[in-house]
């Protein structure tokens, strides 16, 4: 029985130890570090699920342990675990593009850094004030700069690294500027203090609104909400696929936790700026869904398609947030995780067999590997929101939240986005099941990947058929 706080420290320490191990124990088998990282994450997940509720008293002033925090901590651990498995699957590709030593390159850091990132994301989930938000957020961001550019012999990865670096640093600047103004207007750095000051008539509303707009813009960048979604397609496409999976699920979720906390602080009872913030989020949600869904129609690269899809999903989550339905945001996240990670895992498995990311490369997949084709169908059907998959339940709840607040205009736009989704999500499925001429080789799937794919498929379908499952986790 460990407290969640000790689990995070455990993860960070294992991460540091693995870096040291990889650097100094040169005779080490290449498999040791990945498996140690996977083992540590798995152990941490088990510890987290059986954690004890008490945490040291000295840390409570800036460490939240409410249900939101706990949910995202578990979420971050699950994500990291699966991302590490994805990374292990694509190990030799990452190694090949990491240095001129090719597949013999040792890439222990590639497995150790995610542990540190995971610890950072878990700390973000517990942030109670803006300092505790900023520092772990930057830990995550800086680590991601490294991870995105990790396969530097690939021009794509390097380009994605540069773009993420510049745009990410820009968003950091905006975020700090926003924090400064929020602090200036309210005189407080803690979310509680901000919420209290926001409802006081003596607080200058203009200054607070400026700060809120800047702060939300900075956080909007992290979650990929329009108009700050522009970096996502390029960076997601260029980054090594395991990193893309980590960015699109882990980083996005962590962004949503802190965004949720910030929005809660700005829209608390009697807040002067609640309406503006709510309306700004609504407009952002509508724009995000459209800017995610519509350009996706033209994509021929599956990885890039999934990048656009993640923008559109972020739009749905922002919509739920704008309606004040934080539970729905968490639920949507929970439905988004298995489908997205399944999609990226498939891309990596295919890539190791020499199948590329382009749509046309998927042709005849059902002949070459029925399992992979079926998994692809499940993943994309869930992303599209087909009934009986997890994605449908998520979308349904968001629509219900929006309709119960009578935001019909945004709902209409969201429907357009969802309908467009049905077009572009089904293209990979149709391609995978379309017949091809000539002989094609069977694809091999490793046992680890097989088990992970099966678990994720079961997750998608189970939540879709029996959503209470995820709800019970949420409680």
């Amino acid at each position, binding site marked *: 029985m460990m407290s969640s706080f000790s689990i995070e420290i455990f993860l960070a320490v294992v991460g540091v130890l693995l870096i040291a191990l990889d650097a100094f124990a040169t005779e080490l088998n290449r498999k040791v570090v990945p498996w140690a990282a996977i083992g540590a994450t798995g152990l941490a997940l088990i510890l987290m699920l059986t954690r004890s509720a008490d945490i040291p008293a000295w840390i409570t002033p800036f460490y939240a342990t409410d249900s939101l925090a706990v949910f995202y901590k578990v979420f971050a651990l699950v994500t990291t675990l699966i991302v590490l498995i994805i990374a292990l699957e694509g190990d030799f590709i990452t190694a090949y593009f990491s240095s001129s030593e090719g597949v013999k390159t040792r890439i222990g850091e590639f497995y150790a850094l995610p542990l540190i990132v995971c610890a950072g994301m878990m700390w973000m989930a517990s942030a109670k004030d803006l300092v505790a938000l900023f520092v772990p957020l930057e830990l995550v961001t800086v680590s991601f700069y490294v991870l995105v550019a990790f396969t530097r012999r690939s021009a794509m990865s390097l380009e994605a690294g540069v773009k993420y670096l510049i745009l990410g640093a820009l968003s950091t600047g905006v975020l700090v500027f926003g924090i400064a103004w929020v602090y200036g207007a309210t005189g407080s750095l803690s979310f509680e203090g901000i919420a209290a000051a926001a409802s006081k008539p003596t607080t200058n509303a203009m200054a607070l609104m400026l700060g809120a707009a800047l702060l939300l813009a900075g956080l909007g960048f992290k979650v990929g909400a329009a108009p700050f979604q522009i970096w996502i397609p390029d960076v997601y496409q260029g980054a090594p696929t395991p990193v893309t999976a980590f960015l699109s699920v882990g980083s996005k979720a962590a962004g949503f936790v802190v965004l949720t906390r910030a929005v809660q602080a700005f829209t608390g009872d009697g807040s002067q700026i609640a309406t503006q913030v709510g309306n700004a989020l609504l407009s952002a949600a509508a724009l995000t869904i459209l800017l995610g869904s519509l350009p996706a129609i033209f994509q021929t690269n599956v990885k890039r398609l999934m990048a656009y899809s993640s923008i559109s999903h972020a739009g749905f989550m922002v919509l739920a947030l704008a309606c004040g339905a934080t539970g729905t945001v968490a639920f949507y996240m929970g439905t988004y995780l298995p489908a997205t990670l399944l999609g990226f895992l498939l891309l990596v498995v295919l890539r190791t067999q020499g199948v590329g990311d382009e749509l046309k490369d998927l042709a005849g997949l059902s002949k070459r590997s029925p399992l992979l084709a079926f998994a692809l169908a499940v993943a994309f059907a869930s992303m599209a929101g087909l009934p009986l998959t997890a994605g449908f339940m998520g979308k349904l709840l968001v629509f219900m939240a929006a309709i119960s607040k009578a935001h019909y205009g945004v709902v209409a736009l969201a429907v357009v986005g969802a*309908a467009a989704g049905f077009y572009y999500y089904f293209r990979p499925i149709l391609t995978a099941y379309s017949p091809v001429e000539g002989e094609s080789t069977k694809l091999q799937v490793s046992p680890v990947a097989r088990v992970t794919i099966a678990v994720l498929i079961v997750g998608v379908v189970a939540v879709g058929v029996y959503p209470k499952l995820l709800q019970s986790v949420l409680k």
Partner: protein
Amino acid sequence: MTSYNAASVVLLLPLLSAFFILVLGRTVGTTVSKMISVGSAALCFVVSVATLGVTNDSGVLVSFLNVGKLHADIGFIIDQQSRGMLFIVTFIGLLVHVYSLGYMKEDKAQSRYFGSLSMFMFSMTGIVLADNFAMMFMFWELVGLSSYLLIGHWFEKPEACEASKKAFLTNRIGDFGFMIGILTLWAASNGELGFAQLRESLSGGSVSGPLHSAPAWVLTVAAIGIFMGAVGKSAQAPLHVWLPDAMEGPTPVSALIHAATMVAAGVYMLVRVSFVIAASETAMHLIAGVGGFTALFAALMAVQQNDIKRILAYSTLSQLGYMVMAVGLQAGEAGMFHLYTHAFFKALLFLGSGAVIYACHHEQDIWKMGGLSKKTPITFLTFVIGTAALMGIPGLSGFFSKEEILGAAYHDCGWLFTAAAFTALLTSFYMSRCVIVAFFGKARSENADHAHEAPLIMTAPLMLLSIFAIASGYGFFSDRLQAMVPHAEHGEGHYLVMGVSIAAVVIGAGLAFFLYNGKDKDPLNIKLFANRFYIDEIYAVIVKVFQDRLAWIVSGLESIFADGLVARLPAAIACRVGKTARAIQSGHLQGYTFALGAGLILAIYLVVQVLPKH
């Protein structure tokens, strides 16, 4: 067996069968798959026959979702309406299973086919039994999915592929409306989805429910949204474009889905929730109008079709229009009654057309048939019975139900009655034409010359269905089968209505005989009807104009949104927006930083200056 248990069996058996075939189909082989599928259909039929006449019941199988204010269960409602519909669905379903054993004998993917059939049975019984909107919607979507699989069964055929996509996409448009309608009701009723609870909330009985006090426009939005769902599934104008194309699927599928059951789901659902529709005058008018329009419109198009299955498809559209009109006129029972009689004779006609096609070696053009009455006497006889029932010849089942709807129209709305009566005339005309051209005269092609009667496994269902087509209108039959027989209130104008409908039959049939007897090619040449009012062409022209101006914009979607303005216009707009948004994604870092900066300024502007403060 209680009716609750019976319902569970009927629902779950096809699911188990579908699941078994999906998982083990390849291992155990085609024969076992077929046996299981047909066996489950037979068992379902037996069980649903056993439920006829039992007491009303309802119950919850499994609590499904419980988030916030949203509670949704898999629950059953067992009353006269659902029992009758269950009988139709399982009966027609069983027939099609059996018929398919013969028709699909040489197909390579029979396992998949029968798996999809079981899946369809599962989804359809789910719709019939649903006691709340959440379950209804879920199975609604499943029906769409299994229909997609069945229409596209021969996916090597590009037309079949296109048709299945078209059906799927057109249905989605309706389904989104349906979802909005459901959610509006849910929001307005403060979190209710069950039919019983909603009815109570609306009635404002002992405790005035929140729906009762909801503003009228909310109920109108809800009713129209729900109707949108029916428009998609029951192929009402303007979303009718998918149904004729859906005839690309195997003929038994056309009979099962596109004649008797799936398309009727829209009508069934509307009747089930008629209390919502009754709450909105506007929605009622809209529904009746759309139904009447579709009935007339489709009948006109049927007049000049040459493909035997397409004639029947347009006739189905037209008859569905009747039913929807009845719902809009608050005569839901008449609509259900027509649904029930129509199910038998339309299934008979479709299976009959299948036998004809089979006999003529997959020839579908009626002008290349002829003289079949002697070569295939059983098929001929049963087809004529079906035709007579559809035309509404007195004494056959169609006569009773159609007359009820005409009566309802007569009492309510003059011009709808005129349209409906004219439709009846047209129906009589085009069906007579079909029979005369296909079965009489001399054989007009080699295939027709060598026609031979279909095997017994295919003709037996025809004979059985003929009995139903004749007799199902009579009380001793329909009462036992729990059909929703409308109250026989033959008020003022009853004889006028009857007279008009008989006159329509006689004039239509007479005209057809006069025009077509002994002809080798069509003496009428109404291009407008033959080309389906040029709807596809009109759609194409409008889209072309739109495209020419924005030629560089619309490029990607033609292949999928093959036609249908409803699907195309929003698609073109979406494409334009998408392309523009994509242009921002130029790959140039300077452009990105500028966009981020502009977004930042926009955000500040919106929050600080524009959005309302309180």
